[in-house]
């Protein structure tokens, strides 16, 4: 987390930060809360100021709920083909709570009975094999922290930016979790890859049987077939019971509800690797199989709709990530990019995972534009919006990793930077 703002300064509070986005959702949620919890709200309010409660609190429970004062929520859009954005501004640290991990799916969320789950691996293999869930759990497991990001994350900020965009609406289609499963390479060792295989067609068990071709090299590198997220079974929206996890690669290729892997010689040219998830470029071509997510960062606090107090210390905090490895540094600017200072990276800095950065800043009431600029271990740095437009074009459709900005207005209101 951020350093202490110090000295009783009227720095922005978590309550103020949450006010804009959470109040409405909170009010809506309250109506559906059980009576026991609703009672807590009234009873618990004075305890902070007036000391501990003098009556016993709630009993133990089978699963815990959030404090009745906390209402982080995703923003779902669309129906069976939809997305649900993670509330980045409400999150601390780097691990996304499982129920707030972003969602994106193309044919709704299927209900799969784990006892009926089957994974078929066939094609150019010596032993076409059917694995049940328990078979996968009998192999040595591996646990790693990786981010996931929808390839189209940031499209609204690029195509139709508005001052009212929040971190959630700018970049909420990325999340970060601890995943447990087996290396795809271990499964391939079980089936025996035949010479001539160089791609793998991965197919999901959703209504649209979403399919993507994945290079065999990725399978032999760090691809995982996972069944757990943050210590428990995958949630249905995350691919229960089994999904493909391709560290650092665009979300769509991390096929959920994985039911089939077919070793093939050439890519299948599925809909989602031709018509979609390709990048038309200004030179009249379209980039294909652009799997890797570029280096990227966003300040999540302060951001819209926070209002800063004048002459106050402000903890600037955000997340940075790269599909190519570790974040090497994050720089922060408070003057729209004229000058940059290094942010502190919170350890451990993990490869292909969200990294939290922080920097204290004192706002004295003058004009300010807050930017963050991440550089990864390959030396790749986020481009400016102008550089991004020049190289990728105004019509490009994915991989929007340009520098994002937040403008602090005279009255302290923070808004998304629209005019660059």
């Amino acid at each position, binding site marked *: 987390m951020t350093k202490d703002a110090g000295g009783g300064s009227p720095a922005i509070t978590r309550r103020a930060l949450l006010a804009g986005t959470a109040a409405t959702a909170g009010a809506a949620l309250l109506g559906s809360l059980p009576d026991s919890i609703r009672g807590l709200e009234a009873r618990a309010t004075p305890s902070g100021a007036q000391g501990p409660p003098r009556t016993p609190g709630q009993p133990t429970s089978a699963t815990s709920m959030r404090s009745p004062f906390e209402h982080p929520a995703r923003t779902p859009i669309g129906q069976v083909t939809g997305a649900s954005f993670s509330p980045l501004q409400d999150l601390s640290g780097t691990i996304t709570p499982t129920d707030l991990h972003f969602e994106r799916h193309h044919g709704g969320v299927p209900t799969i009975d784990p006892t009926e789950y089957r994974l*078929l691996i066939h094609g150019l293999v*010596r032993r*076409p094999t059917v694995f049940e869930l328990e078979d996968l759990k009998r192999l040595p497991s591996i646990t790693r922290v990786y981010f996931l990001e929808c390839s189209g994350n940031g499209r609204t900020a690029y195509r139709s930016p508005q001052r009212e965009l929040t971190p959630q609406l700018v970049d909420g289609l990325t999340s970060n979790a601890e995943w447990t499963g087996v290396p795809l390479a271990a499964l391939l*060792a079980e089936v025996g890859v035949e010479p001539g295989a160089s791609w793998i067609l991965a197919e999901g068990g959703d209504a649209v049987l979403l399919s993507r071709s994945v290079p065999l090299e990725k399978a032999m590198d760090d691809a995982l077939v996972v069944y757990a997220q943050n210590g428990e079974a995958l949630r249905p929206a995350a691919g229960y019971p089994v999904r493909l996890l391709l560290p650092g690669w665009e979300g769509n290729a991390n096929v959920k509800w994985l039911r089939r892997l077919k070793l093939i010689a050439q890519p299948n040219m599925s809909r989602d690797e031709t018509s979609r998830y390709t990048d038309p470029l200004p030179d009249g*071509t379209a*980039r294909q199989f652009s799997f890797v997510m570029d280096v990227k960062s966003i300040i999540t606090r302060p951001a819209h709709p926070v209002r800063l107090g004048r002459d106050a210390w402000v903890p600037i905090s955000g997340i940075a990530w790269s599909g190519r490895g570790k974040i090497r540094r994050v720089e922060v600017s408070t003057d729209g990019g004229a000058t940059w200072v290094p942010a502190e990276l919170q350890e451990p800095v993990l490869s292909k995972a969200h990294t939290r950065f922080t920097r204290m800043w004192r706002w004295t009431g003058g004009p300010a534009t807050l930017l963050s600029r991440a550089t990864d271990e*390959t030396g*790749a740095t986020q481009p400016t919006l102008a550089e991004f437009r020049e190289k990728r074009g105004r019509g490009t459709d994915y991989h929007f990793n340009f520098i994002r900005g937040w403008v602090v207005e005279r009255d302290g209101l923070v808004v998304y930077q629209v005019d660059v």
Partner: protein
Amino acid sequence: MSGRRTRCALIGCVALWGAACRSEGQTATRYGVGRPATRAEIAAWDIDVNPSGAGLPAGRGSAAEGASVFAAKCAACHGTKGEGLTAGPALVGREPREGFPFGQSLKYTRTVGNYWPYATTLYDYVDRAMPATAPGSLTADEIYAVVAWILSRNEIIAPTAVMDAASLPRVRMPARDRFVPDTRRGGAEFR
């Protein structure tokens, strides 16, 4: 063809199944989990179609036959002429006839006619995902027919052309040569 090769591999595999944990030049240990997939299991799930035509089933369909399929199963979301509605993207449209300006501007809508590089993708996708309210419900003849209708409306095949496992892979899509490999490599240069 991949299907035939799969069957050969299957027969070999069953014979070798008991030979535990042979090295095969890979460093990973083999633990022998899972069970051999049967030929029927593979056939039931092995639905993918690739640009060579591998995986295309028997059957046939013309644009004329596809018109009624499209009207009944597709038009509600994609529009009666495939022009696209809120619920479903445009499928028909060849503009602009020259160039490939999609990276530069959003003026033109990307469609099957001006953006899709392979006709076989259309079969593969319709088969697995369409219609959105009942994926997998169309017969092979219906899929060939509706694919023929979409290609014909895009002026890529003649209105009388018949699409089947032999003709569909031979259809040359206008955007075929526009697709290039990813040249991003990390490092200081932004591409």
